[in-house]
């Protein structure tokens, strides 16, 4: 049994080592459409420390694997994770643009706030919260607007929002139709956002946003959202947004729904299965008595 345990530990370590990929930081060529650079973003991501499973720098690596160009770290009413990342890994290792954010978690509405310096108070109506975010120069996006219920999203708030999640991994686009209609009637240039609301379960970017930016920079991404040049892509391959932009990325949206991560190798699957099986065996075998 002792030899068996030692062998299983070796298998576990070897499997984890097998998962190493030296090509992690390969740059992707920029994709353009007319005057725009088309970037793929996930603007609702939870990370550790907080209620996300991965450290911020591991989120960034995962974003690159998932073909994302830009992410926002948006923990609930907190920027600890962002500050943690700034303290220990201020440079994005793979060229992914990382934006500071907060998921403003209030009674009756959640709102992803991006490019803010600090969380805005949650004890205020949504329209006031949007104004507080704008006062910091940030962007306000209605997060999974179907929940929590009853919703406090009123017309005054919708009028001033920069965007709304037309698709998230919790609320698929079809479930958001009523809010989408209402938002687009009141505010035709509001940005359609797709977000994964990533916590512990893959994949990051399963719902994502195609951003038509004038260049590959944080400022250009934020400007594109403010001007509504975005398409929300749900995890099922459907794109939602302005018709002229949706037609450009609809094929990519379908691709994202079915494709493996960038650089996925068969040996990654073997390594993951071997590591999982080795751990099950170690738990079942237990320690030597």
């Amino acid at each position: 049994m002792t030899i068996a345990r030692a062998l299983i530990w070796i298998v576990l370590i070897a499997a984890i080592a097998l998962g190493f990929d030296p090509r992690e930081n390969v740059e992707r060529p920029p994709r353009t459409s007319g005057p725009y650079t088309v970037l793929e973003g996930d603007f609702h991501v939870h990370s550790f420390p907080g209620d996300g499973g991965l450290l911020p720098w591991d989120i960034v690596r995962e974003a690159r694997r998932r073909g994302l160009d830009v992410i926002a770290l948006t923990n609930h009413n907190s920027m600890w994770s962002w500050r943690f990342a700034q303290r220990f890994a201020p440079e994005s290792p793979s060229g992914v643009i990382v934006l500071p954010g907060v998921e403003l978690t209030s009674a009756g509405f959640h709102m992803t706030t991006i490019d803010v310096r600090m969380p805005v108070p949650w004890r205020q109506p949504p329209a006031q919260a949007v104004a507080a975010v704008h006062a910091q120069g940030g962007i306000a996006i209605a997060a999974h607007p179907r929940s929590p219920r009853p919703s406090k999203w009123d017309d005054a708030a919708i009028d001033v929002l920069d965007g709304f999640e037309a698709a998230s991994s919790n609320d698929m686009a079809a479930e958001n139709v009523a809010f989408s209609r209402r938002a687009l009637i009141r505010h035709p240039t509001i940005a359609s956002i797709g977000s994964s609301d990533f916590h512990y379960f893959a994949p990051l970017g399963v719902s994502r946003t195609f951003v038509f930016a004038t260049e590959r920079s944080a400022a250009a991404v934020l400007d594109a959202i403010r001007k509504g040049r975005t398409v929300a892509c749900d995890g099922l391959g459907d794109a939602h947004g302005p018709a002229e932009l949706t037609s450009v990325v609809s094929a990519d949206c379908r691709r994202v729904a079915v494709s493996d991560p960038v650089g996925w190798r068969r040996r990654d699957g073997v390594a993951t299965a071997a590591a999982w099986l080795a751990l099950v065996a170690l738990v079942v075998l237990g320690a030597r008595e």
Partner: protein
Amino acid sequence: MTPELRLMVAPARTYAVLARQPSPVGPIAALRRPLLAAVVIGVSMAISATRHVAPGLVLGTTLAWAFVVVLQLAIALLLIAAPSRRTVGVPRALDLFFASHAPWSLWLLAVAALPAPLGRPVMPLLLLAVVPLMMTNRAIAAFFREVLQYGSRRAAVHTAIHQALTWGAFVVLYGAAVALQPRIVGAFEAWFGS
């Protein structure tokens, strides 16, 4: 059957046997089971969140989430180090206590193996946690009776204290992470009107 499996099936009998058998476990060796628990959490988190493993990723998730095991160690030590007629030293008691972690370890690995819950609520996965919860409570009560030689009533009280401390810490930490206060206010407003 291995001790971990026997503990899941018949915890009292298994702990009685394990507590009697000579097994010199020092402070370092006492960390073998907690270490495995930390690796299980780290690898499960990596697989669940990314569907793959890699050295940097697993190291990061294991170190980041090791605080859960450290917290469990601290709570266990608090209860184990209290005066009792324990049949083994504190390190061995700690080692035996962590043998009851197997149900939670297997649950974590099972959840990590399930496909991503796209568009589906995560709650059914979490409800599966009832199984390890029940098994662990049974095992911990058996641990207090057979290893620390507590009477049934005292063992039940200590099991309750252990669970209260563990889940209390969980509610405080996870509650802070998910902004529990506004959610509670929202729930009250929904029930009673704002």
